[in-house]
């Protein structure tokens, strides 16, 4: 964070949230949906940031929790359960999966962990595609449509996704500043040393993944209800993870506002690209990634922090001279 004054930060944050609450009144329905998507990506990216940016474990298959959230919601609501009952169910399911898979898979380091999560995600996708009686199979499945005007419905989801983003960010912020946060940062720095310093690394890693799964699955649940139709390829897509990893990198890995800033930059940018270079949007996205990695490898927040640090050093030198 650029400003050191805590009160100023909290004040700015509240102003920001209020502005976002009233924003839909001033923009078209199209942009309301775009920004809802941005909030959603910020949430998923926070989950990746907690694991990768702070703990050093790249959860390449994290889309599985998004998919689990979406499918539990779809199945639950098709059985007549109300949305507010289904969301906790979705979250609990995702957390259970993160623990069951996390205990064995989080023993793997670096590359191997990243790949194992892709494998699990791929296997889950196949299960969802083939368990046709429960999930509707590869064709996808529908959810009940909200009986209100589209405009009101979209505003609901905008606010819900905004609330989720704020809660996710605040929770992860508190987690990082806590004892637990020091534990996971130590794991990133040197897992062996962390273990010898009294840190239960297994517990920390699995809990961090469970937190990541919790918020990612709620984002999936909201997405499913919002779209009212989901397909397995879409919600278990590895691209969701790739996108949110890019978002984290651009915003700044290991920084609490990084995923939000990254989500806005990337998604607004791809909006422009989609509309102006329809046939070249893949290439433009690829080139953008390369440019960003080359010129702002520490992400936007990291680059700003470096700039501020340098200026402070220069000022200090001047004073001491």
């Amino acid at each position: 964070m650029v400003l050191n004054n805590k009160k100023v930060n909290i004040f700015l944050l509240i102003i920001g949230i209020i502005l976002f609450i009233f924003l839909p009144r001033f923009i078209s329905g199209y942009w309301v949906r775009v920004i809802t998507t941005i909030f959603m990506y910020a949430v998923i990216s926070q989950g990746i940031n907690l694991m990768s940016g702070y703990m050093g474990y790249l959860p390449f298959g994290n889309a599985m929790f998004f998919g689990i959230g979406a499918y539990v919601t779809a199945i639950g609501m098709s059985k007549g359960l109300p949305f507010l009952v289904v969301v906790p169910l979705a979250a609990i399911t995702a957390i259970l999966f993160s623990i069951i898979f996390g205990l064995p898979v989080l023993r793997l380091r670096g590359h191997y962990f990243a790949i194992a999560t892709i494998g699990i995600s791929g296997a889950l996708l196949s299960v969802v595609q083939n368990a046709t009686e429960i999930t509707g199979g590869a064709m996808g499945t529908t959810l009940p449509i909200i009986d209100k005007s589209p405009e009101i419905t979209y505003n609901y989801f905008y606010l819900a996704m905004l609330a989720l983003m704020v809660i996710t960010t605040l929770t992860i912020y508190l987690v990082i500043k806590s004892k637990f946060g020091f534990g996971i940062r130590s794991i990133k720095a040197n897992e062996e040393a962390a273990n010898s310093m009294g840190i239960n690394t297994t517990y920390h890693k699995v809990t961090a993944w469970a937190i990541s799964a919790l918020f990612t699955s709620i984002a999936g649940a909201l997405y499913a209800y919002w779209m009212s139709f989901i397909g397995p390829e879409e919600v278990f897509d590895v691209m969701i993870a790739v996108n949110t990893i890019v978002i984290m990198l651009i915003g700044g890995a290991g920084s609490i506002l990084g995923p939000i800033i990254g989500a806005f930059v990337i998604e607004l940018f791809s909006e422009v690209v989609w509309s102006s270079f329809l046939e070249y949007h893949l290439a433009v996205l690829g080139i953008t990634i390369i440019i960003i990695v080359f010129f702002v490898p520490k992400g936007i927040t990291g680059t700003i922090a470096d700039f501020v640090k340098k200026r402070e050093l220069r000022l200090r030198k001047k004073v001491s001279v």
Partner: protein
Amino acid sequence: MSLQMLINAILLGGLYALMGIGFSLQWGISGIINLSYGAMVILGSYISLEFFNLFHLDPFISMIISGAILFVIGAAIYRTLLQPFLKGGIVFTIILTFAVRLIVENIILKVWSADYRTIRLTYAGSNFQFGDAYIPLIKFLAFLVAAVLIYLTYLFMMKTKIGKGIQAVALDKEGAQAVGMDVEKMYLINFALGTALAGLTGSLWASIYSFSPHLLGPIVGKVFIIAILGGLGNIWGAAAGGLLLGIAETAGAVFLGSEWQEAIGMVIMVSVLLWRPYGLMGKKFFG
């Protein structure tokens, strides 16, 4: 499983083996998870397609051109994009190779469209009999060529000066540096060689099966499984992993149904990772 099925599985596995080795070398030795690998394979297929359409060149011949072109592309990508970020951790190289994939995918879509393409060879229908089973001539040829290429790669690694250098760098980077070896050059050649193998596989693939940009993602999934099964950077390991995947997929399709084909590979991979994190034939120093 009948003899016919086993033969089909092994013929498919031979191609998988060749395909997996390049990826395994890049990951195990150069330390790069190359998400653009699928794009490179398919690019090889399209290069052969172009030479077939223009000059009626058989893919078994134009594969040499694919291999050469992709060697150069691989070297260029490594030098300009990847080398500066090797120390930045896996996130950077993963995301950069993914960016390359997007760009190549876009080029392929633009030049050749998303439609499936096929190269129709005159001898495509020929078979010969082996016991009760029929062996398609073209698949058999592709299998042989793949086997020869795997052996040549092995010879290159074991007998040539550069190959030995790559081995040395893989075993002990600091040591190799200390005796004055150009470590970066070894990594570069190794990465370019891996990309060339992708292109060669693409050409062989194009002689048998139809192809389209849709295969990009699934190919990366398969080479992951093969590399993990065999142990990173291990040529014979990847070859065995490829055969095993061919057999597992074929058997899975028969006994569980073809819709489970992808899941079977993934489940095998995750199990191997947990059981032996360094692959079936891998050594501990890789990864």
